[in-house]
């Protein structure tokens, strides 16, 4: 069974946690997330021009690059994570250019070697899948696609075609870390996607509190939290692991209990 299937196959919804690689003590921060209950890890690859990200993740990208983080460093964080956490799905998330710089085959091979389960590339839509998708699939890495409120019914099959792992539903048309969508809209869109696909659907963008996370977990297979965690890394530096543990525990408790509440 793939790590994704295990993570999303539990009776409770999954908590997906994002931080940017090379921002703060990455290994300690990742351990804190997993120990506090994260089911899936998204590790951000820093990029100079994070066009789809809001201020919090932009700042994290700049801090990471300012500290000298390289692609080799990101892959090393991934490799070390896989050694410490053999069962937790690990996703690299980022932008096309750092991923295709040495060629898609190089990147796919390096990611596979590092034990990466999936890749989210923000700026490679299905139309440009050739740029990375075939190389990932050949190495058994799941290309995880994004669906958004602007992805209509006619387009959805194209997004799902060639997707694997899970589908990331971006709940607002916008950048990361800003406003959150109405739960009714999220519920309707997740239901729509699930009619067309067996893939688990994780919902993100703008999720900051356990209450928000619980509300989404009631209607989706997973909840993605990023900016709120990245802000903690930015604010607390070396003390971030303890603070990350605090928020992640609360988020995990809320997400994991969501369906029980619902059925109770």
């Amino acid at each position, binding site marked *: 069974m793939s790590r994704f299937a295990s993570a999303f196959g539990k009776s409770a919804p999954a908590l997906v946690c994002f931080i940017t690689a090379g921002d703060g003590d990455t290994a300690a921060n990742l351990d804190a997330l997993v120990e506090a209950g994260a089911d899936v890890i998204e590790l951000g690859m820093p*990029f100079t*021009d994070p066009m789809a990200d809001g201020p919090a993740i932009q700042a994290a990208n700049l801090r990471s690059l300012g500290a000298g983080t390289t692609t080799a460093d990101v892959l090393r964080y991934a490799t070390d994570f896989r050694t410490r956490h053999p069962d937790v799905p690990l996703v690299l998330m980022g*932008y096309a*250019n750092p991923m*295709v710089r040495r060629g898609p085959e190089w990147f796919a091979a390096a990611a596979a070697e590092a034990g990466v389960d999936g890749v989210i590339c*923000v*700026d490679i839509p299905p139309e440009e899948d050739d740029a990375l998708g075939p190389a990932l699939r050949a190495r058994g890495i799941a290309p995880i696609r*994004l669906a*958004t*409120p602007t992805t209509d019914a006619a387009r959805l099959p194209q997004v799902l075609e060639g997707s694997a792992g899970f589908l990331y539903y971006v709940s607002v048309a916008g950048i990361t870390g800003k406003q959150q969508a109405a739960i009714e809209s999220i519920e309707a869109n997740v239901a729509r996607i699930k009619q067309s696909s067996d893939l688990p659907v994780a919902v993100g963008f703008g999720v900051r509190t356990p209450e928000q996370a619980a509300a989404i977990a009631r209607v989706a297979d997973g909840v993605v939290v990023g900016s709120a965690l990245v802000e903690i890394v930015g604010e607390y530096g070396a003390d971030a692991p303890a603070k990350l543990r605090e928020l992640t525990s609360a988020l995990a408790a809320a997400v994991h209990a969501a369906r029980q509440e619902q059925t109770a």
Partner: protein
Amino acid sequence: MNTHLNSFRNQPDDRGHFGQFGGRYVAETLMPLVLDLEREYRKAQADPAFQAEFDDLLEHYVGRPSPLYFAPRITEELAKLAQPGNGAQVWFKRDELNHTGAHKINNCIGQILLAMRMGKTRIIAETGAGQHGVATATVCARFGLPCVIYMGATDVARQAPNVFRMKLLGAEVIPVTSGGATLKDAMNEGLRDWVANVHDTFYIIGTAAGPHPYPEMVRNFQSVIGKEARAQMLNRTGRLPDLLVACIGGGSNALGLFHPFLDDPSVKMLGVEAAGHGLDGDEHAASLLGGSPGVLHGNRTYLLQDEDGQITEGHSISAGLDYPGIGPEHAWLKESGRVDYTAVTDDEALEGFQLLCRTEGIIPALEPAHAIAAVAKVAPTMPKDSIVLMNLCGRGDKDIFTVAERLGVEL
């Protein structure tokens, strides 16, 4: 028109690819919008009323056709450097005489007509030197649409007159402080605005770059330059020019001039990038000559980047050329060998700037000053009866402060 199989003028393909370049590398949120834009643009292209309105505005509002000018004194000056029998005639396509002082307005007219046709009610744009921002603010004022211009905070500081112009024209200018606070960061912020306001907002991209259909669409709107020049030259001299020269940041003025001539085999073309302090260091903005292929801002093209694919900051004395990428069609034209590319340093551009002021009584923008410097090198090597046609794509009023500072003159 020539559309046979071996044409250089039938790019891109239906996915927006110019060979391996171009494409639609955008976030999923923007993808449906980009596809919709392409559909609407195709309809507009096929609609004679759209073309008629575009032509009418270019004639009566922009001031087209711009003159084709034989420049006798710069021709004479450069011929002094030539071997006997050499020293080409120098001609200029005078797009600096357009309303707002540069070629940028051609594209803005086209895009705002498309925006209104699509029912969009809010316009955004990015700007570097401020020329595209001014042109966008101008058409927004002309058609009564609210306008938000993203401009790197560094550029806001060094281009104060253009910031004031945009404000006079009713635009909101938002300084962008992320990254190096220049053009690429302004473009990032424009994309972030667009992704959050897809329902009512049209993004007027200022150069022949970005996701398909922008590179093709901007090129087509700017092709009025080359179409006019080709007809004017044939009318005046009965022949085609031997060499076209244009400066390149993103590359829209160059494509506008080059594209209508691409299938004229006798016409050679030279694109001029900004070499800043020199191509041997990092302080330049020559994506083609000093960069490598990658993906940024919606397209695959040549970029200034490090070994990990991180984008590096360009440098040029000209804020309008100071961008770490280039339109994807130029990347393709370079690889196909149809167009030659060279680069000119800040110092050479400053000399070109002064040469034109002195010999022809025209103060050029620093962007075409790079092309002038290239003309000054190449014209003396060409036969006396040959013709060099350069796109004089902008006037230099905006640059006199930068030039004064570089020449050590206090105003």
